[in-house]
């Protein structure tokens, strides 16, 4: 009986809807970080103005290591793989890592809100 009631209240979301909820770079409701380094500021500007259109939605969930001075970016399935590729080309640079389609590269919380 209880199980039946809960099942009625569960909001079923498609994978596309779940992704939309978690793709904060395109979401106005996303919380902005309080402080950004110059590296992060330049890289996020590059992502928003150029890379987002190139990489979303085909590479959703992959990682991109961005070197904002050159505009180079390196996409891979894993975070270390993306940053290692970037380091090979720019051994003396620092990189900003993004998870394509998400507001942060990593998370400590469930990105999908409870819908019960």
């Amino acid at each position, binding site marked *: 009986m209880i199980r039946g009631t809960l099942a009625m209240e569960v909001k079923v979301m498609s994978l596309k809807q779940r992704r939309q909820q978690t793709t904060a770079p395109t979401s106005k409701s*996303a*919380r*902005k*970080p*309080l*402080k*950004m*380094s110059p*590296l*992060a500021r330049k890289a996020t500007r590059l992502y928003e103005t150029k890379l987002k259109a190139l990489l979303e939605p085909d590479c959703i969930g992959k990682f991109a*290591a961005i070197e904002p001075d050159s505009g180079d970016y390196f996409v891979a399935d*894993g*975070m*270390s793989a993306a*940053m*290692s590729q970037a*380091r090979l080309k720019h051994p003396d640079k*620092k*990189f*900003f*890592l*993004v998870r394509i389609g998400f*507001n*942060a*590269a*990593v*998370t*400590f*919380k*469930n*990105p999908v809100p409870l819908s019960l």
Partner: protein
Amino acid sequence: MKQTQRLQGWWDKHLSPHLAVVMVTGEKLDLIVDSGFNGELILPKPLLIRLGLPDDGTMFSVLADGSVVETEVHIGEIVWFGQTREVRIQATDADEGLLGTELFRGCVVELDPNADHVLFRKKPSKAHKRATA
């Protein structure tokens, strides 16, 4: 370096699963296995400085309260199933180290607090499966 298929951890009295991970340089890290963290490793800043791990840049992280912060990323090399693996390590102001789900890839992870059982089992690669089929 001897290749292994299993990494065994333990549970602490606060009901947190742990795994000991060894850096290539020999330091042993006691890490909490955190399935709510989808990165590779997190270590306290003072430890990262002491280990001298090179800075590789930054990334944004979503904290448990939903806030977004920029965190430093360092390069480290760990011994993972007996082989050297390069990982990205985030710096934290907290005093504990975490092992995240990015390192769960290619593994079966078994957690059983009643049996004090924490086990990372390496899944056979596709090439190995083909060779033994």
